[in-house]
């Protein structure tokens, strides 16, 4: 069999089993379905359009077939994912082709016109990509606008993630190699299709990659907040249903969970050690601090005490009537040689005197007597023990008795 015949046979087999091949390509990541007809299965293996996977023993499409389909369907898939970008790329490819044809035909005017249009289209596509990435970042930076509810923020975040993923997928589907190959022999085209367009796509891809990272991070945080709120509600509900929150005492475990080992505040303590020489500086500082507060300034004045005796005449000391009355009670006791009641003698006290002061004055006078004088007297109290506070003796009178 000639190679021509073999090739035709392979192409015919591709056409014959196209449904199986497309099912495997689109729905099963290249793996042939188990329900495939045995003949088709054998033919695809025999013609090496499919191979047996050594890792799992399943039959999958050959990489070349997969690559062929990837390449051929790229444009239509791009249009499906993102119609705007798909159409823009298609337009760019068309204009580049027309430009080359015009140039080859020697039609400089047409070529220039096509190049202008191509430049416009490339610029529009690049601006469009930048705008889309910028719009995503605007949403991220504004924390999803004025929305305050967590659930709305999460919904917007998810929506933005879907948009970014879609946009990234559409960028992946742009066949830069194919576009570059159009411009390999023309400087103007190379500038547009090998420099400007790929640079914009790469910038956009980088921006979107960063955005997707940030969006996932925000989504994780928002989901955590949502989970916390849910947890709080569940704990409160548990408290309502079980009249409180009772837990195991985790501090009793042999290995106490790290979370519950937070240390108690350490009480500030001070132990003075006067023999510790390292504290000498601190002591000195304390002393310096004490000395810093100087005493208030007081003007010193001298009052001269007169030393000259001008008058040496005798002075008569006047004894107060109260003192005289008190002494009289003691004199009366000596004279009568019998106990004298302080209460009875109260009439001797100066007018306006309180009886308690009078009685205390008698006691004070007895205590103030010198030893020789006191030995002539005794002091007795008349009264009774307090009925309630029986440790107290309530004296109602004082008796000055002869010894």
């Amino acid at each position, binding site marked *: 069999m000639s190679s021509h015949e073999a090739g035709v046979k392979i192409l015919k087999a591709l056409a014959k089993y196209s449904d199986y091949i497309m099912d495997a390509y689109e729905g099963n990541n290249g793996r042939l379905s188990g329900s495939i007809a045995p003949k088709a299965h054998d033919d695809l293996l025999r013609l090496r359009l499919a191979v047996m996977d050594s890792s799992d023993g399943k039959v999958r499409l050959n990489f070349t077939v997969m690559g062929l389909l990837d390449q051929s369907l790229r444009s239509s898939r791009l249009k499906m994912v993102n119609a705007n970008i798909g159409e823009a790329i298609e337009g760019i490819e068309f204009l580049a082709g027309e430009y080359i044809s015009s140039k080859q035909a020697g039609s400089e005017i047409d070529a220039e016109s096509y190049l202008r249009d191509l430049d416009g289209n490339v610029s529009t596509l690049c601006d469009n990509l930048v705008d889309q990435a910028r719009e995503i970042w605007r949403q991220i930076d504004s924390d999803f606008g004025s929305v305050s*509810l967590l659930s709305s923020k999460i919904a917007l975040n998810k929506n933005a993630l879907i948009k970014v993923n879609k946009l990234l997928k559409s960028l992946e589907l742009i066949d830069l190699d194919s576009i570059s190959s159009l411009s390999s022999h023309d400087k103007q085209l190379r500038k547009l299709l090998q420099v400007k367009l790929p640079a914009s796509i790469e910038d956009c891809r980088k921006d979107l990659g960063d955005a997707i990272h940030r969006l996932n991070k925000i989504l994780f945080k928002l989901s955590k907040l949502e989970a916390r*709120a849910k947890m*709080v509600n569940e704990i409160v509900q548990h408290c309502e249903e079980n009249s409180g*929150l009772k*837990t195991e005492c985790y501090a009793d475990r042999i290995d*106490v969970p790290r979370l519950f*080992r937070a240390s108690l*505040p350490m009480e500030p303590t001070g132990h003075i050690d006067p023999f510790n020489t390292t504290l000498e500086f601190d002591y000195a500082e304390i002393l310096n601090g004490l000395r810093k507060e100087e005493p208030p300034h007081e003007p010193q004045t001298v009052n001269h005490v007169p030393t000259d005796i001008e008058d040496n005449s005798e002075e008569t000391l006047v004894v107060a009537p109260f003192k005289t009355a008190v002494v009289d009670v003691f004199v009366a006791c000596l004279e009568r040689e019998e106990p004298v009641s302080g209460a009875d003698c109260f009439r001797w006290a100066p007018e306006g005197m309180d009886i308690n002061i009078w009685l205390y004055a008698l006691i004070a006078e007895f205590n103030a007597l010198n030893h020789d004088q006191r030995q002539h007297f005794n002091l007795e109290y008349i009264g009774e023990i307090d009925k309630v506070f029986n440790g107290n003796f309530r004296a109602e009178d004082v008796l000055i008795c002869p010894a």
Partner: protein
Amino acid sequence: MMKDSSGNLFTSIIEALLSGRFICQYSDEVAFEYLSKEAYRENIDDYLSKIDRALRCTDSEDVYYSAYLTVTSADRRRDIKKQFSHTINSLEPMSRWLKLVMSALQRDSSIQPGDTIRQGELLSAIELTQTLMDDLSKIIRVGVFATTKEAPKDQLTHFINKLVDQGYLIAHGPKSSTYTATGKWSYLYNVLEFVHTHENLGLGDSDEEQEDMFL
């Protein structure tokens, strides 16, 4: 607080940690920044390890605190139990409070570190609804936040003052009624998550919710 006259941030941080403080960017930005650097963090941790303590942070790494390294003595276990008891006893009122704030301010997320709490706004919302006033009364009826105050305004002031005392809120000024939530809430959430998981308090996630987490 932090920076003393000699500029020794290390000393100030150690003192703060040993006095039981939680350090976050809202309670002490300078100290938090210091602790964010691994080398400095290791210095602090080395020092604490000499007195059988360690520098710890929450899962979200937004607050640092000191914790015991080992539980070797009866005294240490007693301290841990005391702290545990205080933490656990405050979980119910704190959870109720978080829910109250969500309901009052019509939010679907609970208080997070950095959030601003305006007492006036909260009080207006609570006073509008009898249910919220009842919820507030329930929170301060018994336990660690108990008070005999009757008026919602007094009850709210009492509770917020307690939160300030315990380092959950920081007032914007000496007489301000606007507060910033500190990183200590993260620690509370870690404890709540632990208890929620280990005591099986959850009602269970639906499959759809679990899938969403992995988007």
